[in-house]
């Protein structure tokens, strides 16, 4: 039997030992004597969250198809185990082999949200790998970062040897082959990294030099060698048949957040909402072939035995063969022990018809994401949803027997006024009124309209990448205004309001558009014991404020400042496919309230058409 890295005593003394033992169905075990490259994929949060992430499952499947590579997994040890591992000096290990990470060739970390930055250091620290790239030697694994946060990797640049910018399907083989060849030739780590930096989308932060102006903005950003690119172009898989999918998804023993098969039907989004980073980063929109999807669904359900399948994309209603796919899934699986879940669908007659087949109408709730309370502000952010769409959708739903509606909004959007904030409960009121138009004997008690607000964080590669972020006080005041306005509404008893913590949002804002100077602050925070900042119970705003002070870094510089168009932004060296001209045009349109049609209606000339694929070619022929 496999020997576990942790003793029985430790496993019996911590919460959910199943997080650390591996052995899950479909996890891959190889003979390490027949392997050239040992790769460990990491999601730097707790197991149940990390195991829910599709990206890791895709890469895990992809790497393990290579005969010379064994890809394993690791997740952040929860604070209870963290403490024990530090006390007993137990090195962090991969789940499959239970071998220490420090002996691996690669440690690949997916960075999905800014609030996991201290967890990155926790992983390195527990793995007994030097926290700073410059302190690592040939004996240490190469630490690679990937995922959406790497579109501005600068606040964590010191901790990584490599960032992989873009989709994992494209150049990993080239990267691993180059590494293997050079390692076997006995090349030095520095030389290997230099060579890898020539591969498309590979950014080796140590090989780029940043200088600053007196006001703290960047004055220059240059590679230190002539033979590596000054601009890093993102990787995109343009052949949708080559987009990865896990043939045999690993099934956790304990319940993960996503406890189901996830079927990725499309990458990218045609909508062009101006606040949405994903909508810009994952362009061009690429639909997967419907017949391939049907086969994938069958294969993943039979290789896992899951009783639920969920369609995944940024906007599933924009997947053109959606009806064909859903008809197939419903016909084959509905009522046969497999549930079909449909997030991110636009509410209309078609989607309600589908939902009524696969959900218990009385129990389920419908979700709208108007994002802003008034049409004016929705035009500013280019959110195509109109009030008419929402009221018609809700009306149809109420007539169909639904009673619960959830509405998602953001506070602190650029150009927001008091009217926009008040507009949130006013929209909820209109929805309630639509419900109470149904004769009393035909409706089933009260309706429930839940408004949920989050605070807007400006992100790189969006038209709002230059804007000044709203302050903490503003967030608190605007949330109060929503609440107060709700209390003035006739149907306030049918409404419910939830809002999110504002401190975390401010820190997220700092990191999102930060530069290399933040590395020290993050390191200091980790040294002061910060981990799991994404978890409210572990996030400590006072500690973070202390770290900024001690590192002499002014957080306001990153958030409460409108940037000039000609300022060199920390992420400008990355080419995400959308041009700066387009982003400027979009920001100017936002200021004027001019809506940009979606990619299928009219090409907005964002620059991604250079990739010659997806939606960019579909509507031209």
């Amino acid at each position, binding site marked *: *039997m*496999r020997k*576990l890295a942790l003793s*029985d*005593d430790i*496993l*019996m003394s911590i919460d959910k*030992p*199943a997080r650390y*033992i*591996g*052995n*899950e*169905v479909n996890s891959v075990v190889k003979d390490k004597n027949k392997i050239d490259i040992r790769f460990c994929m990491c999601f730097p949060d707790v197991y149940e969250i990390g195991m829910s992430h599709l990206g890791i499952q895709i890469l895990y499947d992809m790497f393990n198809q290579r005969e010379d590579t064994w890809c394993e997994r690791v997740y952040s040890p929860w604070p209870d185990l963290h403490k024990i591992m530090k006390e007993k000096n137990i090195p962090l290990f991969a789940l499959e082999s239970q071998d220490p990470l420090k002996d691996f060739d690669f440690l690949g970390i997916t960075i999905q949200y800014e609030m996991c930055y201290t967890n990155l250091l926790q992983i390195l620290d527990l793995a007994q790998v030097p926290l700073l790239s410059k302190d690592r030697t040939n004996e240490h694994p190469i630490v690679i970062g990937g995922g959406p946060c790497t579109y501005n990797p600068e606040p964590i640049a010191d901790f990584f040897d490599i960032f992989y910018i873009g989709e994992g399907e494209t150049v990993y083989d080239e990267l691993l082959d180059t590494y293997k060849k050079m390692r076997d030739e006995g090349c030095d780590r520095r030389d290997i990294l230099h060579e890898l930096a020539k591969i498309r989308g590979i950014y080796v932060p140590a090989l780029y030099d940043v200088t600053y102006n007196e006001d703290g903005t960047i004055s220059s950003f240059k590679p230190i060698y002539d033979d590596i690119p000054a601009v890093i172009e993102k990787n995109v898989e343009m052949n949708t048949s080559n987009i990865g999918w896990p043939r045999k998804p690993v*099934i956790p*023993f*304990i*319940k993960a957040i996503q406890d189901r098969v996830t079927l990725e039907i499309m990458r990218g989004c045609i909508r062009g909402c101006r606040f949405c980073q994903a909508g810009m980063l994952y362009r061009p929109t690429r639909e997967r072939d419907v017949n391939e999807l049907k086969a994938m669904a069958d294969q993943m*359900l*039979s*290789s*896992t*035995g*899951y*009783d639920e399948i969920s369609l995944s994309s940024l906007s599933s209603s924009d997947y053109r063969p959606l009806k064909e796919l859903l008809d197939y899934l419903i016909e084959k699986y509905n*009522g046969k*022990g497999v*549930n079909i879940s449909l997030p991110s669908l636009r509410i209309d007659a078609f989607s309600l018809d589908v939902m009524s087949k696969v959900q*218990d109408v009385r129990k389920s709730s419908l979700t709208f994401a108007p994002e802003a309370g008034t049409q004016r502000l929705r035009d500013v952010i280019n959110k195509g949803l109109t009030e008419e769409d929402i009221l018609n959708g809700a009306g149809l739903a109420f007539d169909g027997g639904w009673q619960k509606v959830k509405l998602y909004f953001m506070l602190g959007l650029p150009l927001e006024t008091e009217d926009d904030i008040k507009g949130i409960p006013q929209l909820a009121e209109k929805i309630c009124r639509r419900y109470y138009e149904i004769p009393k004997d035909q409706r089933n008690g009260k309706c429930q309209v839940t408004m949920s607000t989050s605070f807007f964080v400006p992100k790189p590669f969006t038209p709002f990448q230059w804007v000044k972020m709203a302050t903490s006080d503003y967030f608190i005041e605007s949330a109060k205004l929503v609440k107060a306005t709700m209390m003035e509404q006739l149907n306030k008893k049918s409404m419910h309001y939830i809002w999110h913590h504002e401190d975390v949002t401010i820190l997220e804002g700092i990191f999102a558009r930060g530069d290399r100077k933040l590395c020290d602050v993050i390191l200091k925070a980790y040294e002061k014991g910060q981990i799991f900042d994404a978890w409210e119970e572990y996030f400590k705003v006072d500690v973070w404020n202390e770290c900024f002070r001690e590192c002499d870094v002014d957080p306001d510089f990153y958030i409460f400042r409108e940037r000039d168009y000609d300022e060199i932004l920390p992420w400008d060296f990355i080419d995400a496919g959308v041009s700066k001209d387009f982003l400027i045009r979009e920001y100017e349109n936002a200021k004027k309230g001019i809506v940009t049609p979606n990619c299928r209606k009219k090409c907005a000339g964002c620059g991604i058409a250079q990739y010659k694929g997806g939606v960019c070619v579909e509507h031209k022929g």
Partner: protein
Amino acid sequence: MNIRVKFSKHGSMKFIGHLDIMRFFQKAIIRAGIDIAYSEGFNPHQIMSFAAPLSVGVVSDGEYMDIRVKSTKSSADSIRALNECMVEGIRVEDYKLLPDNAKNSMSIVASAKYAIYNKTSGVGFINDVDYLNKMISDYLSQEEILITKETKKGETTLNLKPFIYEFKAEVKSFPDEEAVDRACLIFNISTGSLTNIKPELLLQSFFDYCKEEFNENIYQIYRLEVYSRDESENLVSLNDLGANIEY
């Protein structure tokens, strides 16, 4: 048709709790192509029940799960199909058809037989079989074996003696350890809905009697079998209530 599946649970799987084992089997049954029956209703679920939940940390040779199927292959084929879908540490041992009038395993559990041994050879109290057997015989010859048991209503005092059906020390080899024989205590105690005696309860009482500290970390508890009572009140293994399916 109702089927009783017997399985064993060893190695790292001892850290997987009862509910997660249930979820594991729900998926394994689909992968193995067992023609499981579903309940009625909007969200049908597999008709499945487990005999006596096992505590986390305990290994077992005698775990039982009853399922209802619409059709079935032979026992041998079904066992093979299920074992192709297991993970290291879980093995399906038997797959038997129950008589139509059989009660489900959960309701008929009467006792369970356990072994306990030192995880690390020599570290712990369970070493000298002769000495242990003498202590067991003294322990069992007490008029009453009183213990305090925590229940939902508070603490109650219970006489353990009538609920101990077997208790002895012997030397055995164990699948979770290197292949060396080692001393162990073996006991069969009342389990199930009537009087549920957890193994730790008896062990604590016996260790107290021997003036030894019962530190759970240094011992491995191992469930050997689960029993029901037949018409003449004899203990019979749950496995003996079904019959192999042969085609």
